[in-house]
C-alpha cells in the first residue's frame, strides 16, 4: 500500500481532459461517439477552455485546425468510425502541419461494446503519416496528452492520441499539475497552408523527412520503454494489452512497451529482440506492430497465437501462453440473454410499431433507434454508418422504382441527420427519387448520453444557442411534403405514413417527441391493468416495452419503469390498460 495523497481516481477520458487543461488548450470541437464522448464533456467543465459540439467530426476537425492556425493549442475527439468522416482534413493537415499544437483523440472499440465495426485506427496514423500515442491507463492518458502537444509543435504535425474502451472507460490514479498557456502568432504562409498542387508537391517531401525524424525520436522516446526481466520471453506490446501482459507475467518476462505506435522505432526493436530468446507481439485487432517487426527481418509470434477479433483479457493471454487460469463455477440452467432495449416511454417505439404494422422495408441509421431492429419490433433491415439510411434509400428506390417507393423508408435521428443525413437528403431532392424519409427527432443526441446538437437550441454548456428548424430546412432543400407526427399517437402515425408512402413525391416525416430520459420531460403516472377486463391476448406486448410482462395470464405493469406514455393502451382491444390520476403518485 502506498500514500495516495494528492492523487485522484480518474476516468481515462477525464484524464485526457485534465491533460488538455494543463497543456493550455484553448479550443475544442468534437462530435460525440462512444467511447470518446467524456473527453469533451469533461473538458467543457473548465471555464478556461472553449468547447463545442460540432455537427460532425469533419467540421470539428476543421474547426480545431483553424484554431491551431490562429495560434492557440486546439483539440478534437471522436470514436474510431468518426475519424473516417474526418479523414479528409486529417490527411492534408499532415502536409500543412500546424501553427499551435493540434491533438486529435480517436477512441477504438475492440469488442464493439457500442459500435458498428471493429476497425483499428492505427491504420489511419500510418496512412496519414502522422504520429500516434497510445496510453495504457489514466496517468499515461494525462501525461501523453501533454506530450502530444510538444511533439505536435516540435515536429510541425497534428498528433493522434489513440484511446480504447478499456483505457477510456476505466478509472485509475493520476497526479494533477498546473495549467500553462502558450501563444503562437498567426503569420500568413501561403506555401505552407494553401494545399494546391504546386504547394502540396513541396510539402510532401517535408512529410517524409518528418517521419524519418520521428523514427529517430521514437528510438529514445521515454514513452517507448524496455522493462527487462527473464530473457526467455520478450513481449512487445502497447495500450491496454500491456496491462494484461503485466497482469499475467508481472516482472517475469521482458517487455518493450510501445507508447508511440506510429512511427515505430527500428533499432530499439532490433536491440530488444537480440536480448531475448523468443519474441512475441501482443496487440489487439490488426497486426500493425507485428508486421513492422517482420519487415525488420525479425522472427516473431503474434497473430498466429492471438486473435484479430474482439478485445483481450488476462485469461486470453494466459491461455495463449499455456498458463493456468482460475477455476470457475456455473449452474446448469440456460441463462436468458439481456440485450439492450428501447427504454419504457421511448418515443421511437410507436413509430417502429407503425412501420412494422405497415410491413415497411426500413433502412436504418446510427443511434438508440437502431434497437428498432431487435425483437419484437424487428423493423430495421439495414444499418451501415452515420447518414447511410437516406443515401441508401435513394439508390434502393432508383433501382426498384414504384414497388419499393410505396413501402420503403429511411429512419434517421435528429443528431445523425445534422451529422450527415442532410447531404443524402440533398441527393434525394436533386436527383428526385420518390423517397420517404422519417426523421426521429427526440430533441437530443441520445445513445451517447444526451449531448446537444444544432436542432436542440442549446450548446454543450446547456446555454441557449442557434437552433436549426428541421421543417424549414427540408422545405428549403426542395421538399414540398414535410409532415410532423407525435409517435405516441399511433393512429396519427399510421395515417401520415400511409399518405406519404402513397404519394408520388419525395417526402419527410418528422416523428417528434423528446427522449423520455430527459430531465425536463414530465411523466404520467404508470398505467394500471384492470385484471377484470384483461383477456391475456398479449396485444400490448407487441411494442416490446420492458415495463410490460405477463403474470398469471394477465398483463402486468412494472410501476418503477412505466412512464404512462399510453402507446400500449392504444393496442388493447378491451381497454384494460387504464390511466391513473396524478394524485395516486
Amino acid at each position: 500500500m502506498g500514500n495516495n495523497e494528492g492523487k485522484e481516481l480518474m476516468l481515462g477520458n477525464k484524464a485526457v481532459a485534465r491533460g488538455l487543461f494543463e497543456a493550455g488548450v484553448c479550443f475544442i470541437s468534437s462530435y460525440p461517439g462512444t467511447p470518446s464522448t467524456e473527453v469533451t464533456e469533461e473538458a467543457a467543465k473548465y471555464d478556461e477552455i472553449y468547447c463545442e459540439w460540432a455537427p460532425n467530426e469533419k467540421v470539428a476537425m476543421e474547426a480545431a485546425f483553424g484554431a491551431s492556425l490562429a495560434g492557440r493549442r486546439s483539440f478534437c475527439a471522436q470514436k474510431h468510425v468518426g475519424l473516417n468522416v474526418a479523414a479528409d482534413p486529417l490527411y492534408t493537415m499532415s502536409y500543412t502541419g500546424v501553427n499551435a499544437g493540434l491533438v486529435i483523440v480517436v477512441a477504438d472499440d475492440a469488442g464493439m461494446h457500442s459500435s458498428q465495426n471493429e476497425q483499428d485506427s492505427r491504420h489511419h496514423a500510418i496512412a496519414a503519416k502522422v504520429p500516434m500515442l497510445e496510453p495504457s491507463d489514466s496517468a499515461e492518458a494525462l501525461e501523453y496528452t501533454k506530450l502530444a502537444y510538444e511533439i505536435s509543435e516540435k515536429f510541425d504535425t497534428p498528433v493522434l492520441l489513440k484511446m480504447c474502451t478499456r483505457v477510456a472507460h476505466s478509472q485509475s490514479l493520476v497526479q494533477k499539475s498546473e495549467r500553462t498557456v502558450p501563444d503562437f502568432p498567426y503569420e500568413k504562409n501561403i506555401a505552407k497552408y494553401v494545399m494546391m498542387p504546386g504547394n502540396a508537391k513541396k510539402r510532401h517531401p517535408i512529410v517524409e523527412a518528418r517521419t524519418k525524424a520521428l523514427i529517430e525520436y521514437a528510438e529514445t522516446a521515454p514513452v517507448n520503454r524496455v522493462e527487462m526481466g527473464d530473457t526467455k520471453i520478450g513481449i512487445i506490446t502497447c495500450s491496454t494489452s500491456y496491462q494484461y501482459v503485466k497482469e499475467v507475467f508481472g516482472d517475469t518476462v521482458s517487455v518493450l512497451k510501445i507508447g508511440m505506435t506510429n512511427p515505430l522505432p527500428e533499432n530499439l526493436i532490433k536491440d530488444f529482440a537480440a536480448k531475448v530468446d523468443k519474441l512475441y507481439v501482443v496487440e489487439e485487432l490488426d497486426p500493425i506492430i507485428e508486421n513492422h517487426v517482420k519487415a525488420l527481418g525479425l522472427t516473431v509470434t503474434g497473430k498466429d497465437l492471438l486473435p484479430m477479433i474482439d478485445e483481450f483479457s488476462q485469461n486470453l493471454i494466459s491461455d495463449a501462453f499455456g498458463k493456468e487460469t482460475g477455476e470457475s463455477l456455473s449452474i446448469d440452467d440456460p441463462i436468458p440473454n439481456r440485450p439492450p432495449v428501447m427504454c419504457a416511454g421511448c418515443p421511437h417505439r410507436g413509430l417502429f410499431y407503425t412501420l412494422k404494422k405497415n410491413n415497411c422495408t426500413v433502412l436504418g441509421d446510427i443511434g438508440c433507434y437502431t434497437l428498432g431492429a431487435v425483437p419484437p419490433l424487428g423493423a430495421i433491415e439495414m444499418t451501415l454508418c452515420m447518414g447511410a439510411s437516406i443515401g441508401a434509400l435513394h439508390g434502393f428506390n432508383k433501382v426498384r422504382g414504384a414497388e419499393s417507393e410505396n413501402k420503403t423508408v429511411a429512419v434517421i435521428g435528429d443528431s445523425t441527420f445534422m451529422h450527415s443525413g442532410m447531404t443524402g437528403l440533398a441527393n434525394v431532392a436533386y436527383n428526385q427519387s420518390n423517397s420517404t424519409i422519417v426523421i426521429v427527432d427526440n430533441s437530443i443526441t441520445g445513445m451517447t448520453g444526451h449531448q446537444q446538437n444544432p436542432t436542440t437550441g442549446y450548446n454543450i454548456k446547456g446555454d441557449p444557442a442557434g437552433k436549426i428548424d428541421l421543417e424549414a430546412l427540408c422545405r428549403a432543400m426542395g421538399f414540398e411534403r414535410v409532415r410532423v407526427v407525435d409517435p405516441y399517437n399511433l393512429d396519427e402515425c399510421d395515417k401520415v405514413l400511409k399518405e406519404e408512402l402513397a404519394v408520388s413525391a419525395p417526402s419527410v416525416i418528422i416523428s417528434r417527441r423528446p427522449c423520455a430520459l430527459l430531465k425536463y420531460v414530465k411523466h404520467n403516472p404508470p398505467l394500471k391493468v384492470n385484471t377484470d377486463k384483461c383477456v391475456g391476448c398479449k396485444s400490448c406486448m407487441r411494442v416490446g416495452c420492458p415495463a410490460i410482462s405477463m403474470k398469471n395470464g394477465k398483463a402486468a405493469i412494472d410501476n418503477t419503469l412505466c412512464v404512462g406514455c399510453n402507446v400500449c393502451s392504444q393496442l388493447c382491444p378491451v381497454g384494460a390498460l387504464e390511466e391513473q390520476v396524478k394524485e395516486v403518485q
Partner: protein
Amino acid sequence: METKNIMIVGVGGQGSLLASKLLGHLLMSQGYDVKVSEVHGMSQRGGSVVTYVRYGDRVYSPIIDKGEADYIVSFEILETARWLPYLKKGGQIVTNTQQIDPMPVIIGAAEYPDNLVDKLKNSGANVDALDCLSLAEQAGSAKAVNIVLLGRLSHYFDLPEDAWMKSLEANVPPKFLEMNKKAFELGKNF
C-alpha cells in the same frame, strides 16, 4: 498485497455507477492502488451491465476475468447467475433477490430460471441473498438498493465503519445522507 477483485453487476439503469464510485473512493482512502472499469453506451439501455473494481499494491488489468472475482455484488438475481463463472473458488456473492425480466423472457422466447438462490448455493458459491428493494424502501427510497448492497458487502470487509461513512458522505448529496446511512445499516445488519 495480491490484487482483490469486486464485480458489480446488474441491469442498465439500476445505479451501479454510484456503488463503484463509492468503493473506489473508499479503497483509495485506504492507500490502495485502484482501478475501476465501466462500459458506457448501448448496453446501458436496459442491458446486462458490469463494473469491475480492483485494488491492491499495484493493479495492472482494468478488468476481471473468469474465476477471479473475490466478491460479486449483484443488483438482480439473473445477473448474479450470468456472472457466476467470474467468481473465484471460495469467493463471496452479495445479491439482491429482485427479478427483472429481460426482453427474451417478456416476449416468451426464453424462460426465467426458478430457484436461483438455491442453485447458486448448490454450485458451491457462498451466497448472501437479501431483498434489497424492501430494505431500501424501508430506509426511505427504492433508489438506495446500491447502498443496502454496499452495507451488506461491508460485513465481509475488515475496514472501520468510519471509513465507509466518510466515503458515503463524500459521494451522496447531503439531503439524502441520513436516508443512505439508514440503508447502509439495514444492509449491514440484515
